[in-house]
Structures are given as C-alpha cells and as structure tokens.
C-alpha cells in the first residue's frame, strides 16, 4: 500500500528519476568527456585511430584510386573492384557509399571534438588549443579526399543532424576555402613537435604536417606561391630528410622514419606492425597466379629503368607461363606475425617529404620564378632513387618530368596518381586511350544513391 502511494506520487508528479538510467557500461556522456584533459585525450585518440581504421583510409584510397588511374590492374572477380578497374561504377554501386560515409564519419568526430571543447569547460588551455587544431586538420584532410572523389560535397561543420542532414552540396571552391582556413588555423596553433606521448611518434600532428597539407591544397587550388612557401617550410624543417638510397628498401615506409611527415597509427592495437595495404596487394603465396588479385600495369612498370631503386625495392615480380606479374611492394608485411618475425614495423605513410620536393618543384615552374630550383628539387628525388637525372630547362619539359617522377615515386600510394591526373586535366586523354570503358564522367564517383534518397537536396554528378 505504501509502495503504491509512493509510486503514485512519483509517477503522477512526472519525476524523471524513476525511469532514469545510467549510460551503458563503456559509455561516457559527451559533457563529461570534454570536461577533463584525460577524457578529451581519449576522444582525440578515437578520432585518430578511427581514421586509421576506416577502410577508406587504410585501403580504398590506395587500391581503388590506383585502379581508377593507370597504375594497377585487378585480376580477380569482385564486382566492385572490377568497376574501379574499368571506371564503370554507377549510381547504385555500393563502394562509393562507404567512401562517402567514412570521410564524413571522420569529419563528424572532428566536428564533435571542436564543438565539445568549445562548449565545455574543464580542459586545460594548451590541450584545447592543440586538439581543436588537430580536429580542424583532420576535417580538412577528409574534405580534400571528398572533393577529389566526388566534386562538390556538403560542407558539414557541426554535429547537429537537424542542420546537417539536409545540407546541399557546396561548390568545390568553397570547400577548398574552408580547408585552407582550417589548415591555416591548425598550422598556427599546432606545436613544432608532434603532440604525442612518444616524441618520435609521427602519427600525431605538428605545424609541418599542416604546412605540408596546405602545400598540397594550394597546389590543387592553383595558388602556387603559397604551395611553394609551405613546401619550403617543411623541407627546411630539421625534422625531415629523404631516406638515403641504402635504407630505401625498408626505410621509406617504416614507422616513424625521417622522411615521414604524417603516418597513420598502426591497425587494431598498438603492437601491430603491418599495414592493410600490404595485406591486399601481397599474395598469400607466390606459387600460383590464382593468389594474385592485383598486378601493376606492365605499361607502367616499363617506364622504370631496371636500375631504378623504386623498381627494385618497391615492386616484386613473379613469372607465370612466361608472363611477368609485378605487384606493389612498398609495404612488405601482409600480416602482423610476418612483421614481428622480421623485426620490422611499418605504418601507412600519408604524407612524406618527397612530395614536398615535387610540389615545390612544380610550384616553382608554374610561378616561373625559379626553374633551376625546380630542377634541383626534382633531382633530389631522382637521385635518391638512383634514377636518371632530369636535365630539362624549360617549363613544359620540367612539368612533364616532374609529373612522370610524381607518378613513379607515388605509384599505388594514397591517391596521388589519380588526383594528379584529374588536377592536371590529363585524365580523359590518358585514360580514354587506355581503357575502352572509360568515360569522362568517371572522373568523379557518383554521389551514393542512399545519400540522395535520404537527403533530397543532394544532386547527382553529371552522367550518372
């Protein structure tokens, strides 16, 4: 009776508490997360490790883009990969949905950290400054891939779905403007050293990483002077140097190497020492062709001199029935067990110094101010690879040599070749000649139909 009366009183007064529950085990309310340095750090860790774990970052950005361009061929039967190989993806293909979703999921995490730190007090000033800068960098990094994959995309800068769910696509230029603002801000607020526990750990961010991405973004937006100055900043930093020839085989893609500007944190747990990229390119055994899912396009491998260290160290070949099959071999350990046995440790390298030399070389040619400087930057990369040195002196020849070097240096690495083909406007000519199924529309992936279905403000890319 008494309990009845109590219950009556509680319920009729609409007291929230009677049916209030604690968050489930392993969950913390957002307001609590950003009220302390410790939990805010955990949220930051979540942002970085999640980026490293998304399939789009740790696989697709490399293998899909390399298939779309002219580096790589796909040998097996998975329909989605065949579509990338032939540039025949369409509106109802499924891969672009995960690419689109992965980048935006990472953007959400960055936005949530920015909002959380701005709206909640309790963290130290230094932490707040650094983490907001890092989140802005991650946001810019994701948008860079988004615009280069889809063209115009919704510019989402907050977490509230009531606002963000129905945003239309923003012009690519506007997205680049936001990237530049975010990266400039990040560069200003990040430290010189990487903000990680271990000083040598290059999975975090510093001013140079922001400058490096800025250099790339300015390159893509045609602001060559700014691209040059940012690339110079990085090159002149004492933190980085090109890995010498002798160490090139295992050095350029080793974790925390001197050439690395930014790398992904290793997959799954801190002790893992291999990359997913190696897992997809390297066959389980070289004994049967059936184990090979990919090969480098022989027309591409033919571009290398046999003495080129990149041909020797970054590719691996096997012959079946008189045909040489070459695979990308930048990363060498397809499982953690193999890496551990070899005593090696590899991380997915996202930005490295060689790119800064090539960006600066191209920027110097495009601004027309320093052609000799451009040549010496180009030669720096060639020298390291033991390749024939360019001797070009006029701008067109230099640009052509730089582009070729770019292709050779960065084959099957992130999306370099694919994005550069599109940036320079060569994609239609180059790929149109190579692939019968290539059409100009395939420079952009279609916006996922599921996204358009859920957001009536989204439009489809032309031709889909």
């Amino acid at each position, binding site marked *: 009776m008494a*309990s009845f009366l109590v219950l009556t009183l509680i319920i009729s007064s609409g007291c929230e508490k009677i049916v209030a529950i604690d968050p*489930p085990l392993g969950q913390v309310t957002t307001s609590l997360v950003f009220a302390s340095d410790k939990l805010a750090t*955990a949220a930051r860790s979540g*942002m970085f*490790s999640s980026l490293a774990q998304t399939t789009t970052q740790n696989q697709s950005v490399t293998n899909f883009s390399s298939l779309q361009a002219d580096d790589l061929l796909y040998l097996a039967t998975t329909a989605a990969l065949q579509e990338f190989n032939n540039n025949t993806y369409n509106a109802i293909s499924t891969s672009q949905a995960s690419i689109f979703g992965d980048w935006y999921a990472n953007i959400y995490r960055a936005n949530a950290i920015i909002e959380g730190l701005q709206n909640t007090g309790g963290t130290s000033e230094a932490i707040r400054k650094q983490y907001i800068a890092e989140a802005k960098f991650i946001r810019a990094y994701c948008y860079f891939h988004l615009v280069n994959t889809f063209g115009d995309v919704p510019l989402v800068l907050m*977490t509230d779905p009531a606002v963000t*769910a129905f945003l239309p696509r923003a012009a690519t230029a506007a997205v680049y403007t936001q990237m530049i603002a975010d990266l400039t801000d990040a560069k200003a607020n990040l430290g010189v050293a990487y903000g990680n526990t*271990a000083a040598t750990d290059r999975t975090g961010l510093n001013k140079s990483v922001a400058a490096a991405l800025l250099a790339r973004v300015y390159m893509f937006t045609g602001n060559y002077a700014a691209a040059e100055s940012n690339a110079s900043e990085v090159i002149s930093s004492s933190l980085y140097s090109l890995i010498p020839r002798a160490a090139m085989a295992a050095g350029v893609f080793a974790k925390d190497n001197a050439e690395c500007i930014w790398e992904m944190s290793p997959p799954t747990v801190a002790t893992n020492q291999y990359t997913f990229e190696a897992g997809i390119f390297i066959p389980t055994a070289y004994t049967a062709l059936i184990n090979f899912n990919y090969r480098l396009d022989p027309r591409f491998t033919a571009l290398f001199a046999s003495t080129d260290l990149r041909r020797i160290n970054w590719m691996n070949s096997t012959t079946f029935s008189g045909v040489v099959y070459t695979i990308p071999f930048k990363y060498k350990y397809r499982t953690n067990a193999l890496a551990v046995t070899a005593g090696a440790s590899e991380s997915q390298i996202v930005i490295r110094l060689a790119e800064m030399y090539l960006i600066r070389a191209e920027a110097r040619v495009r601004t027309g101010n320093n052609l000799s400087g451009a040549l010496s930057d180009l030669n720096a990369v060639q020298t390291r690879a033991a390749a024939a040195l360019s001797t070009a002196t006029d701008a067109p020849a230099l640009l052509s040599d730089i582009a070729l070097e770019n292709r050779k240096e960065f084959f099957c690495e992130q999306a370099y070749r694919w994005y550069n083909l599109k940036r320079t406007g060569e994609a239609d000519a180059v790929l149109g000649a190579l692939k019968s199924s290539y059409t100009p529309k395939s420079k952009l992936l279609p916006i996922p139909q599921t*996204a358009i279905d*859920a957001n009536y403000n989204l439009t489809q890319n032309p031709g889909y």
Partner: protein
Amino acid sequence: MYKFYPNNLGRPFRPIRQILLIMRITTFLLLAAMMQVSASTLAQQITINRKNANLTEVFKTIRLQTGYDFVYDQDLIAKASLVNINVNKAELNDVLKNCLSNQSLTYTIQNKTVIIQEKGFLDKVKGLFANITVNGTVLDENGEPLPGVSIKVKGTTRYTMSSNGGRFYIATTDENPVLVISYLGYKTIEITGIATMTIKMVPDPAKLDEVQVIGYGTTTRRLNTGSQAGISAKELEKQPVTNVLQALAARLPGVTITQTNGLPGAGINVQIRGANGIGVSGIKPNRPLYIIDGVPFLSESINTATFSLNTTSNTGLPSAEGSTSPMNSINPSDIENIEVLKDADATAIYGSRGGNGVILITTKRGKAGKTKFTLNATTGVSEVSHFVDMVGTEQYLALRRKAFANNTTNPAAPSVTTAPDLLVWDQNGFTDFQRYFLGSTAKTNDINSSVSGGDNLTNFYLSGTYHKEGNVFPGNQGYQRGGGKFNLNHTSIDQRFNLALTAMYSTDKNNIATTDLASWAYLLPPNFPLYKADGTLNWDGFTSNPLGYLNQSNDNRTSNLLTNLALKYNLLKGLDIKTSLGYSKTDMTQIATRPLSSLNPSLTSGATSGTASYVYNFTNNYIVEPQITYTNKIWKGTLSALAGGSYQYKKSRMPYSTAASVFTSDDFLNTVTAASTVSTTSGSVDYKYASLFSRVNYNLMDKYILNVNFRRDGSSRFGPNNKYGNFGSAGAAWIFSEEKALKDKFSWFSFGKLRGSYGIVGSDETDNYAYLDTYTNSTYVYSGSTGLNPSRLPNPDYKWEETKKLDIGLDLAFFKDRLSLSGSYYRNRTSNQLITLNTSTQTGFSGYVANLPATVQNSGWELSLSSTNIKNKDFSWTSSFNISQNHNKLLSFPEIEKSSYFATYVVGNPISSYYLYQYAGISPTTNLPSFTDFNGSGTISSGFAATGRGDRYYAGTAYPKFFGGLTNAVTYKNLSLDFTFQFVKQKGRSLLSSSNYPPGWFSNAAASVVNDYLALGSQDYLVTAGTRGAAGSASYSAYLNYTGSDASLTDASFIRMKNVSLSYTLPAKWLGKTSGQSIRVYAQGQNLFTITKYEGFDPESQGIATPPLRTITGGLQFTF
C-alpha cells in the same frame, strides 16, 4: 430478520467474535433441552397445498386436519408475509417450520395447542444451528461420477468439492440452501439443496461463463468487452511441440505464427493482426508483449539482449537458428492457458507495450482436492517431410561443359581451380546432399510429471520435466531441456488474505550447428566429394564444406528462473489490495569452437589452431505491481474498478564476448587461457519502466457493459523530452440476448453480444539509449591511449509509436450454446513510426532513432466458429474453425519523396511487398530474358516503377491473403481423436529467388528451377559459367534479373495437417476399484502432410531452409 454468517467476509472485529462464541455454547445447551419438547409433537399427518396464502388460513387448515389449536396475537400475524406451502402427509413440526421459516415468528406446542410468538434472540441464534446437511453425487453428462466439482452454498462461504466418486457432503444453516455447483467446462448450476440429491452436470460448449484471464484481472467470455483469443492446456497437450508458440498456429484468429525453419529451438515469428511498424529494411519484429503469470517476459533473443534492436545484423554469437526464442525455455506442459489480447480494450491496460498485442500465459496452479499425481511420457520421431528434386550429376556436368563452350568472348577453358567438378572430381560421383545432411530421423523424448493437491485454503502444484530432442543433421546434435515448477496458494481462514507463489526454473542445452546445412545441401554440385582421397575434408572450390560445420561445436546453455509472488488482502467489502512481486533471471552461456580441421585451409594458411568464442549473457528482471480493486453494486449494476502501478527494472549484461584464436593446438579450444590472441567486448542494457494504470468497468444487469482503461507509462527508452506517454481505451458491450424481446424467446438462440472498442496503445520497441549523447570505448589504441568515439546521433525528442485500434465484434451462440460464432472487424492505425531514420551519411552516421510521420494501417476481419455437432452418451463430435484476413498498407507518409523511404515503400501498398521485374519473354536480340522497362530508361534498374525510378513493379504482398484453421474433436467412449488443419492463402517466392547462379555455374540448383529456365530459350545463351566477357556477364545478369522477376512469384498457399492426436483412456474397471486413477495412451502427429502447389522445401518457411519437421510421437499418461 438478519443472519449471522459464521465465515462472512465482512467479519466483525475480534471483541464481538468472542461474545458470539460464548453465546453459541450457551445456545447449544438450551437447544438440547428444547429438542426434547419437540420430539413429543410428531406423527401428525398434514396435507396442504396453498399458494400466497395468509397464515391464518393455513393455521385453520392444520387445525381441521390435526385438531391442534392455535394461539397467537392478531397484530403479529397480520404483519407476517404470505406463504407457499405444498406438503403431503407431513408432520406438524415440519409444516410449521416451513410456514414460519422466513417470518420473524416462532412457535411452541403445549398440550395440543400451538402458541405463535415473536422470535426472541435465542430463536434467532437457534436458527443458525438448525443445520441441514446435503449428501449428494455429481455426475457428468454420461452419468459417470465427476470428481473435483465445486459446491458452494450461495450467499455463504461454505464450500466443498466432490470426491473421486463424485460424492459430496455439505452442511448448511439454511433450510432451503441454494447450492452453486460449478466445474470448468460445465454449466454452473444453482439448485436448492435437499438431504440427498444427485446432480447431473451439463457441458458448456460455448464456455461463455468460464473465467477468462485479461490484463490485470479476469472476466468471462460472456462479459468481455474486448477482443481476445485463447488456448488451454487441453489443446496444448495434444501437440508435440518444443516451443509453446508453435502450438498456437492455426488455432487463434488474427494470430500468425511462422516457424523460420525446422531446427530444434528455431525462431518463431508471432504477429498479431499484422505488422504495425516499419523497421530496418521493412522488417521490424513487431513482437507482442509476453506476460507470464503477470511478469513481463523477454521477447528479444537472450543472446542479443544487450545489442541494438534496430539493426538487422547483430554481432552476437549465433545460437541454433541465429537467435534463441526465450519462450523455448518454458515447458509447454506447465501452461494452463494462453490468451492473446488483440484490440485496444484488451491491450490498453498494457499501455505503451500493448501495440503489437499481448500474450498472457498462465501457468498451472494448485487445486484443492485429492492429491493428484500425473506422469506423462512421450517418445517420438521427427523428420524432414519434403525434399526438393535436384539436378543430377549427368545433367549438371553437361551444363557445366556447355557453359565453358559458350564462353566465347573470353575463352576460359575449365581449369583445376575454376572447374574441379569437371576436371578433378569423379564424373559419376553423386551424393544426395539433402538426404545426407537433412535426412536423419530426430528422436524426441519427453517426460513430465506433476503432483498437485491441498485444500481450499492451501494448495500446491509441483512439476518436473525433461525433454530431449535430436536433429535431422547427421551426428549427435540435439536440444535438451529440464526444469521444474512450483506453485503454492494460500488463503487465510477468514478468506481475506491470499497468497500465490510461483517459481519456475528451466535449463536447456542446444548444440545444433549454427549454420542451416540446407543451403549447402542445395548448392553443392552433385559430384562434390565431401572427403579427399586422404580422408580429410575436401574444400575444392567452396569456402565451406558442410561437414566442417558439423565438426564445429556450439554449446549453448540457457537457464531461466521465473518467480512471482502475489499477495492480496481484503480491506473492506469489495475492496482488495494486491501486490505482485516478480523476479526473473535468464542467462545464456555460449561456447563455439571452430577447430582447424573444420575451416577452409586456404583461409587459414599458417594457422596452428582453430578459433573459439565464449559469450555469457544474462538478464535480471524485477517488477512490482501494487493494485487496488473495488467492486460494488451501484444503482442497477456492478462497478468494478482497478487502479495500479507498475515498476519494472530490467538489467541485461554481457560480461564478456570473447573471440580467441592462435591456440597451442585444437585440443585447447575450450580454454581461453590457451589462446594467444584474445579480444573481449562486453555490453550492458538497463531498462526501467514505471506506470500507473486503471480500469473502470460498469456492468448493468449483465446487459450493458462499459469498460474504460487508462495507463500512463514512463520508460527509460525515451529521451528527456518524451519520457512519459498516456494510453487508454473505451469499450462497450451490449448483450442483446438479455433483452426482454429476445431472452428465452427462441429456443435456438441463446446468446448475442455486440461489442466495440477504440483506444490508443503504444509500442516502445526501439533501441535503448538512442537519446544519449555519449562516447563509447573503442578497442583501438592510438599513441598509447585507448580511444573514445561518439556513440550515435542522439535524439532527445523521439516518442512512443502509437497505434489507434478500432474493433467491432459480434458474438453469437445458438442451440443452448452448442453453436457459437464470433466475428470481429478491426482497424489499427500506427503512427509516429519509431525507426532508425536513415540520413545521408554526411551527418556522420547512417541514421538516428526518430519518429517517422508515416501511418501504417492493418485492417481485417476474423471469424471463429465452434460447434458441438453430436453429443450423446458415448459419442461426441465438436468442430472449431477460424479464418482471418488482414490488409496491411502504408496509409500515408507525408513527403515520402523527400525521404530515403521513397526507395523502399510506396504509399498505399503493404509494408512487405514484392517489387519485382516484369518478365517479358526472351529478347529476340539478346536471346536472354528481358523485362518490361517501365520507366523507359533503356536499361533495367532496381528502383520502383511506381515512382519512375526503376523497373520493379508491385507484384503482390508477402502477407497472407487469409489464413485459419479447422479443428475437429471426436470422442467415442474412451477413445478420442483430434485433428487440426491449417490453411494459408498467400503468394511466395519460389526456389528460383534463392538460386543465385545460372545453369552452368559452379553451383547446383533444383531441377525445377534449372529446367524451367532452360525451357525459356536456347542453352547457347542461357547457360554460363562466369561473368568474364560481355556474353557471360550479360547472361549472368539476365539470370539474376530473372530471379528477381515476377517469374519467381508463385502461389505459396497451403493446407497442412498441422496436428493429429489420438488418445485412449483405459476403462476404469481395468484398473481395479480405485476410481480417479486413469491411464491414457496416445499418439500425436505434427505437420503430417501438406497440400500445396509450392515447389520448394516448404511454403511456410520458404526459401532454402530446413523445413518444419514432421513429428510423430506416442505417449502414456498416468494419473492417480
């Protein structure tokens, strides 16, 4: 005059009782003296027959016949009431008693003079003890003694029960006691008791006045204003089912029971009056609320209790059939009754959880009477009743060769890796994989025993069960269940306090393979060698060898404790307070091991061992439900009111879900400590629920009944902005057969009731925590720090799904209730659809929980008929029939074109619809199947034709057009036969839709699928072995489109002999003199045969799955 009732409910308080007690002793002594006086006045013979006579006239007659004089006060006699008297050669004392029994008068006789006086106090007390005793025998309709019949003196609490010989003895203070004699299944009789009597009970086929369990109370079928259907133990025990839900199929109108496959412990989908909610990919469980003895029972699978409800792919470790129905752990023979509540009137008392209907399960309880033991043992066998004819080796290989020959644009000669069936395997090899993998006979053994007894005040029921069931797969897999149940009821001597305690415990073990082997049995090429020459498993070309699954172990154990204590106290006349306290704990331990030998070696190169998973889940559930009930006569009717509260706390935990690999060897798979790689996750879900509910029922002269329910619910599933919701209903019934114009006017018409109700009921079938803005622990580590990630897009605003239910019903009975008919029309509209709203992933997530502005309507009618066709001493035949029809449609969805649901639903069509390509014959240009290009795009695409986005048109619905059942029960003397047919009229998808590869592919299919397809055109085009090249690719995609076309739509209607039960009760005389003993032998069959045009495994489960099994059992039941 007023009476003292010794055991009256409105018992005086203690001091007064003591006074009465003293007086009784005194009176007894006085009475003894007075008896002497009376004895001398006998032997006067009087015959008199008068109606409405005044006393003076009666006295005159007596005086004439006996010569006795009368002395009385004229005024006193004038006040006396008129009497009816009809005696023949009676004694004076009896006649006088008769005349004065209801008067405030008494008499004394002195010397042939009768003195009439006003009754004094003493006389009134004396009246109390002028007991008469009734000795009687109760017989059933066949004249056999009927034990256990309740006999009550009307207006008192005096009560007894007939013994095994049907005899009873009851003492009463009333001279003309009215006895109320009742027994379940028989009409309640009111009869004036005489010293020795024989009462013959009349069966009550319509069961109109049987107690019917409703939410938080009881009523009768006669007086119920709501729509509900039930099944009792008598019908349940005839069906050899493992899960009691299976026994509901075909018996209850408006209730669809679909078994997903035939494996023991298989999932069972229960839908009451259609699917109300839109869910993920159109499938929401729409689960009803299960209440066992007042305690809400789990409706979600035990192994997914801590997972999200709104995702189709749970990461939980699968058990037998992917998920485990908690209802499996309930022993069907412990169930007394199941009631399915359907309309608003019946379900609104469950407020926010009654939207999908409520299933009330009442378990068996103690009964007063002789201690009764029953032992029931059953054994039986089950098997797959129907296999599919497959393409044989010869034809299969011919098609394969043809396929490679066809592959002209990209010549691909068969190689050892692409075509081992042609180049490696025995060209004459053949295995009938269906019979190999599904052809075993599963044995079932079941033992149930129970003992019950006690008296009217304290009684108990105790039962134990053991059930063992094999599987049709090869090997020794099976399902075992053991358990016990205890029920204790106690009532205080003054009948004011009442206690009922129920505890049920069961534990089961299921080690059935988690993969239904049917799909592998279907697609393996007929010459696939299961073993290599060296005796190891063959994996050529297939990622799975079904024997691999059989080499894996799945140990799933659940235990389930369910307790409930109900306390009731009578505070004042008509006013009771009650509290129900419930506790349940359900848990499940799962260990799955995958030895290396069971895994495809090409996927495990270098591995030293297999893998193992260990999961433990439990759910604790606490509920407290205080209630007050009040019943009183108000004006010409009876008012019953109920007010109550409910507080529930459900705590689900998954302490660990561990995946382990890299063991030293397979010998250590059961020990997690032997694994080098271990990853563990855990989970938790809390759920709190608080409610206030009330019901007011007013019954005017059993003719007009009004019933109003209200409930206010609060649930932890909802965000701060919408935690509470109000629900309610109003229902009314008009029993027009009670109207003067009809009552007892027509001998053939016995009962008529018109009822209707309307109300708003809810559903909180959604995710827990979906409003919470939180970060979740991530398993990933970054720079030495474990991460936190945003858990979801929180939405603090979503609220209850709301179903507005309208129900109109007519219940009729004819020929003294021998034929009864019940019909209902209903219309349920469900709005505020609670769903994970898909968003563009630009939001960071694919969706969030929200209410959709859509309204889904389910409308339909139900008809049930039951009749006693023949009933005489030795032979009886009863039939019952039910049929239901439900129309489901998406009634409205404002701005659907702006939502992602534009691609999934079409307003006006059922939620679950078949959108298919329209097959348009073989194209003369491509020689491949072609399809209607509805949107004129020049290609065939998967969007809806109705919205102009593609070429799939609405070809029908997956929901049945109508369904029902027919049950007949025939009894001849001790022999009884029951049989039930189930019928469903529906469209379904043929095996074509599950046969994913065209003829010529490295995969087998049903002969009907392949031959029908080949008959369409030329094998030069239709047969393909790959997608290489334009021709192969075109042929492959044409086939895929064909499987998704209306060619795969077929009539999946069926009539199934669902259940047959034949039983024989050994004649009592064979067992010796002791009556009450009985031995019954019986044989039962389930799913004996199916009449259907459907060319697949089974029209109910459809697709490629082990079909529901045919089960035949035999058993013995002892009762003593």
